[in-house]
């Protein structure tokens, strides 16, 4: 279906050559990985989530639930800026300090509060994000900036003490929109002298945190040609997306304390225990070894807890009072002082032939980073490059991105990581192009989209230099997009819509293709350790950070598949930097793909040791042994020895004793994309613009499905979040930058009675580089609903909503304008 035929490996877009050899189609995988779907038992089972029973009984312990383990625990509260932009001129803490039950008040001047800048972005080292924020600050840049903090005997006292701190501000003009922020006369938000920023294109005179561009081919040439030729059509569209809150169930919570070994120990709701440890150590000038981060159960992350936001304040407080301190964000703080999905304004221009072949795509992205830089370059770049990979065969592609500071909440990582904004623009644009040509939107996509065996160079567009793509691009070794489209079409009734009887009601169907990655290529490390107990069970330690996804369960299933053990016999320890092997953390859809591979390799290592014992016990050559059904079998004789027997033999045996312990690390340049097709079925009332979504169908190729129950939950949960981006309220602010959305009551989160039906469809492929053929699943379904729903509304009533959220008022206004 793609224009680059399979086997045409050396084909590259015109004008872009490759310095490195393009990755080959073939990928060497071991015999374990080549097992067919029928040979998989543990990974494909709907294994009960390891923590399910303690969750339903209320026994699962999240960070706040550890409070009772520390009898001298102090409650922390943070004083946050009430203005959007300015300088604190006076900070009088005397009344607060004198209050009964107040242990300490810390300010930017306190000895325990570092003055060095850091980044809250929990990224690998060195962090791409700038060091531009301080633990507490007098120079405030958004409503919510932390100024001071209190530790007190209880929450009520801490809250009262915060209110008793007197603050005077020298208020400055605020700038709220990215478009206004980059104007030459806009208020300047950062002083470049006090920021450490290695991102390309930073220009603090214009509030630009980062700017990058890349080009494949000759985009200007393609548009010039189009101006002269009647067989080429130019289509230009503009798109806008709002803020989105992660709405984590469990608010960010952290407990910090000094332990009896004079080390600092955190129990904290984080997605990145190791990055948090490293960044805290640097910021507070403490050896890494003297910080321990324990991750308990986490009440949802979605990228929000990839930020190190409360931990530094908690550590400064605990240093000040030498007692354990707990900080727990309020819901208002969650909405405005934690992190958000960055709003984006996106322009897409393209040149297309009459036959429907894309000749050029030119994409320009401006994002609103808010007050501080976190993920500005990488998430804004992802807005283009992630989904441009779908149309990598387009010979001329350009991407330009700018991340601008404003006096708004700080943008960070959020599920999808730029791709939801980018998909809204690009997949809406593709629908518009197809309509312009009078083609079926999916047939148009089919002419242009990437397929199995193809080389993707577009996702590397920002690594382009002098017309060359460094790294040689990404080889697509598994792609079920054709089948996703076909099965999704059947499920939604594509081309077969029954119109309602009422003449003012119109039904339409929309579609959007989607793509993501499986981890950050060349920038991940997962490690695993597995040891056998004498009863034949195993304890698996990984740094995989289960933030509620069920990663612990999936890891156990991967190990069990190799070891031939029942999955429930593999116990997984939650990540703890003192105990677990290293892991980059739960982000970038990396856990199953990267850490899962480390687990598989560690289990293979352990299985070699099982075979040593089994070969001796059975008197059979080890190459004839297999591990399955809780035992090791000698295929020749049919004899077997149970894992329990091997466990006892390994530890209490009369001959050589050695505990079975496997270990492995995994790091990879590969990041195979999962694919999917999102469909929306909608009826619009042309009189009012009101609309009803009948069904949201998402057909996904995530390679081999590991635990269908967990995978389905990932898809429906991500689609829910995607639907919210499409129709939710976003944030609103008054002219002074004061937030008007401060709680769930103001924010348009879909609830049980307003969430339309969600239908996941799995199209299994085999990704040779993934564990048992698996790719990522968790983020990609966040991408498709806004464009699919916008396209469906266009199908129903002929108007296109290009700024989110989609509302009845906007549809009505667009109909009126026609």
């Amino acid at each position: 279906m793609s224009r680059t035929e399979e086997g045409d490996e050396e084909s590259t877009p015109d004008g872009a050559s490759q310095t490195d050899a393009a990755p080959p189609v073939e990928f060497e995988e071991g015999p374990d990985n080549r097992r067919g779907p029928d040979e998989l038992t543990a990974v494909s089972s709907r294994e009960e989530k390891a923590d399910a029973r303690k969750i339903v009984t209320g026994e699962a312990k999240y960070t706040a639930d550890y409070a009772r383990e520390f009898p001298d625990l102090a409650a922390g509260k943070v004083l946050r800026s009430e203005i959007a932009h300015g300088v604190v001129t006076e900070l009088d803490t005397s009344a607060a300090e004198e209050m009964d039950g107040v242990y300490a008040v810390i300010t930017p001047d306190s000895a325990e509060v570092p003055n060095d800048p850091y980044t809250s972005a929990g990224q690998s080292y060195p962090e791409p994000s700038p060091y531009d924020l301080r633990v507490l600050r007098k120079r405030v840049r958004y409503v919510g900036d932390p100024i001071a903090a209190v530790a007190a005997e209880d929450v009520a006292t801490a809250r009262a003490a915060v209110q008793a701190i007197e603050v005077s501000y020298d208020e400055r003009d605020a700038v709220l929109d990215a478009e206004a922020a980059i104007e030459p006369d806009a208020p300047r938000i950062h002083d470049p002298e006090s920021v450490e920023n290695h991102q390309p294109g930073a220009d603090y005179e214009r509030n630009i945190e980062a700017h990058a561009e890349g080009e494949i081919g000759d985009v200007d040439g393609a548009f010039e040609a189009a101006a002269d030729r009647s067989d080429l059509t130019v289509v230009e569209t503009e798109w806008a997306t709002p803020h989105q809150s992660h709405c984590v169930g469990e608010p960010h919570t952290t407990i910090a304390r000094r332990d009896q070994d004079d080390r600092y120990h955190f129990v904290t709701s984080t997605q990145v225990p190791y990055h948090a440890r490293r960044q805290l150590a640097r910021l507070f000038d403490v050896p890494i070894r003297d910080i321990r981060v324990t991750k308990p159960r986490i009440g949802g992350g979605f990228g929000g807890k990839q930020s190190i936001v409360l931990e530094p304040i908690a550590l400064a407080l605990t240093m000040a009072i030498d007692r354990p301190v707990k900080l727990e964000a309020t819901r208002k703080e969650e909405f405005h002082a934690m992190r958000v999905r960055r709003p984006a304004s996106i322009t897409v221009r393209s040149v297309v032939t009459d036959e429907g072949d894309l000749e050029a795509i030119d994409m320009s992205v401006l994002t609103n980073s808010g007050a501080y830089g976190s993920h500005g370059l990488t998430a804004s770049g992802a807005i283009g490059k992630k989904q441009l990979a779908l149309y990598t065969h387009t010979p001329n592609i350009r991407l330009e991105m700018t991340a601008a500071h404003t006096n708004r909440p700080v943008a960070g990582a959020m599920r999808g990581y730029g791709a939801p904004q980018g998909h809204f623009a690009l997949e809406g644009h593709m629908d518009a192009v197809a309509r312009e040509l009078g083609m079926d939107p999916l047939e148009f996509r089919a002419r242009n989209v990437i397929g199995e065996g193809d080389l993707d160079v577009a996702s590397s567009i920002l690594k382009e230099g002098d017309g060359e793509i460094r790294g040689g691009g990404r080889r697509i070794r598994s792609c079920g997009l054709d089948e996703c489209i076909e099965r999704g079409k059947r499920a939604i009734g594509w081309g077969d819509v029954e119109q309602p009887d009422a003449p003012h009601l119109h039904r339409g169907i929309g579609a959007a293709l989607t793509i993501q990655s499986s981890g950050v290529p060349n920038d991940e490390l997962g490690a695993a350790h597995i040891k056998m107990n004498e009863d034949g069970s195993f304890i698996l330690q990984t740094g995989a950070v289960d933030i509620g996804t069920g990663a612990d369960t999936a890891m156990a299933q991967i190990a069990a598949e190799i070891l031939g053990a029942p999955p429930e016999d593999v116990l997984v320890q939650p990540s703890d930097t003192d105990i677990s092997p290293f892991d980059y953390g739960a982000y970038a859809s990396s856990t199953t793909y990267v850490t899962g591979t480390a687990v598989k390799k560690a289990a293979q290592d352990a299985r070699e040791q099982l075979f040593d014992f089994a070969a001796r016990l059975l008197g059979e050559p080890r190459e004839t042994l297999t591990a399955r059904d809780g035992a090791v079998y000698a295929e020749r004789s049919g004899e077997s020895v149970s894992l329990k027997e091997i466990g006892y033999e390994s530890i209490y045996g009369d001959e050589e004793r050695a505990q079975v312990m496997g270990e492995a690390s995994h790091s990879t340049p590969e990041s195979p994309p999962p694919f999917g097709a999102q469909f929306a079925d909608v009826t619009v009332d042309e009189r009012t613009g009101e609309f009803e979504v009948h069904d949201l169908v998402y057909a996904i190729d995530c390679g081999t499905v590991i635990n269908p129950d967990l995978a389905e939950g990932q898809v429906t949960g991500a689609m829910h979040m995607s639907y919210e981006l499409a129709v939710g309220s976003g944030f609103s602010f008054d002219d002074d930058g004061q937030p008007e959305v401060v709680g769930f009551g103001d924010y348009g989160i879909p609830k049980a009675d307003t969430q339309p039906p969600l239908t996941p469809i799995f199209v299994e492929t085999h990704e040779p580089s993934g564990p048992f053929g698996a790719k990522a699943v968790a983020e990609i379904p966040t991408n498709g609903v806004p464009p699919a729903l916008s396209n469906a509304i266009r199908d129903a009533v002929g108007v296109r909503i290009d700024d989110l959220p989609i509302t009845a008022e906007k549809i009505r206004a667009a109909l009126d304008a026609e």
Partner: protein
Amino acid sequence: MDVELTLNGEDVTLTAAQSDTLLDALRGAGYTGTKRGCGTGDCGFCTVAVDGEPVKSCLQPVARVEGATVETIENLGTQDELHPVQAAFVDNAALQCGFCIPGMIMRVTQLLESNPEPDEREIREALSGNICRCTGYEKIVDAVQDAAMRLSNDGAVVSDGGRPVSSNRSCVGCSDCPGGDGE
């Protein structure tokens, strides 16, 4: 101040500050299955039963439950003997991070007592005050329908008075056990 109430079938006295909510008092007394998500009654994570009605405990001043009968998630089944609603959530994989689940289950048990055979619309309306960020609600609705069937087969909702979590696991090698003389 002291507040006397019947909590999970036992007469207890909760020591609390005047300004404390029922949620504050419950969590302070160790009933941490009840979760705090917003403090404004919008998320439903802190749902408990007060005199048989679902109540968002973050909005309920603890002083107001003097003499009342309060039930929390700890009053339902144990990990070994799950209440049918809990079992339905487990078996339908109707949970991910789990932070909303105790409140959700408390709301569902109340729903099924008042309406043993709810249709999907009734289920969704009943759960409209209980946010879940992880699941998209699909599997939760499935679980509620499944729970309704289990309860109709089992008879009345079990309410066993909040027995403590017991451990049936025997220990190996400790000095209190027969033969526990190892090192």
